[in-house]
């Protein structure tokens, strides 16, 4: 397991947990970042990282991406 921010370009993982305040967790859930969901990193830093989740591309700040914990390649 590792933070989403640490995946490299093209790597995918499955969300295990999201750590944050109520507001952030809710916002991320609305955008599709829910435990069990598959995420793929399209482009990682420098700066925001671009990820694919539930069929949409989302840009996340590095700090936020550090709060999303993912497990290894779901294939």
């Amino acid at each position, binding site marked *: 397991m590792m933070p989403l921010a640490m995946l490299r370009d093209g790597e995918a993982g499955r969300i295990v947990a999201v750590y944050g305040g*109520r507001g952030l967790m809710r*916002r991320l859930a609305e955008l*599709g970042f829910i435990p069990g969901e598959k995420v793929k990193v399209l482009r990682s830093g420098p700066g925001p990282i671009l990820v694919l989740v*539930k*069929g*949409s591309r989302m840009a996340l700040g590095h700090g936020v991406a550090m709060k999303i914990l993912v497990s290894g390649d779901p294939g």
Partner: protein
Amino acid sequence: MIRVALIGNPNVGKSLIFNNLTGGKAHVGNWPGKTVEKKVGVCVHKGVKMEIVDLPGAYSLTARSVDELIARNFIVEEKPDVVVDIVDASNLERNLYLTLQLLELGANVVVALNKFDIAKSLGYDIDVEKLSELLGVPIVPTVATTKEGMEELKDAIIEAARRKGRPMRIRYGKEAEELIAAVEDVLKKDEKLVETYPVRWLAIKLLEGDEEVLKLVERSPYRDEIMEVLS
């Protein structure tokens, strides 16, 4: 004249549908006090005039971003006759979240199931009738790029404006429902508040800790009583 609002997640083809409906002739301005573009156009169908307002793209209706707040305030305060929720048929799960939020808000919703061709090519077999029955709203499959379904969508809007939708109630389980009912009871004392906003929606948002709704309650003469129930 029927007042229609268009809403949907980003990238669902909302602008394309707006252009299809209005012929691309839009009056572009800003939302009061916000640097967010406001597009308004007119559509005449079978002798009925419709004013179409394009709302900012949104994944949800929480008060967290300016765009979403504009969309939400427009629906709650301006009460358009019909809200056309444009849903990406190839990405239903994500899109239906906004649909449920609109229904909870008491909007008179018509769903445009856009990108229907893409959904089909992905092998999705959507039972439109069943979905319509479950949500309690009319659903029109559309392909904005080829203008498929546009006439049917216009028909559905006019039909919905005549009929006025019945609000759908999303149940949250016994424990939450008891809380919601308790908050509703005290909110109902403030007649002015309840006149503008659906009371159940207010209660749910308060329990969620929605900042904008909390601000509304701050101004209520029954503020202390409401806060007591919430604590």
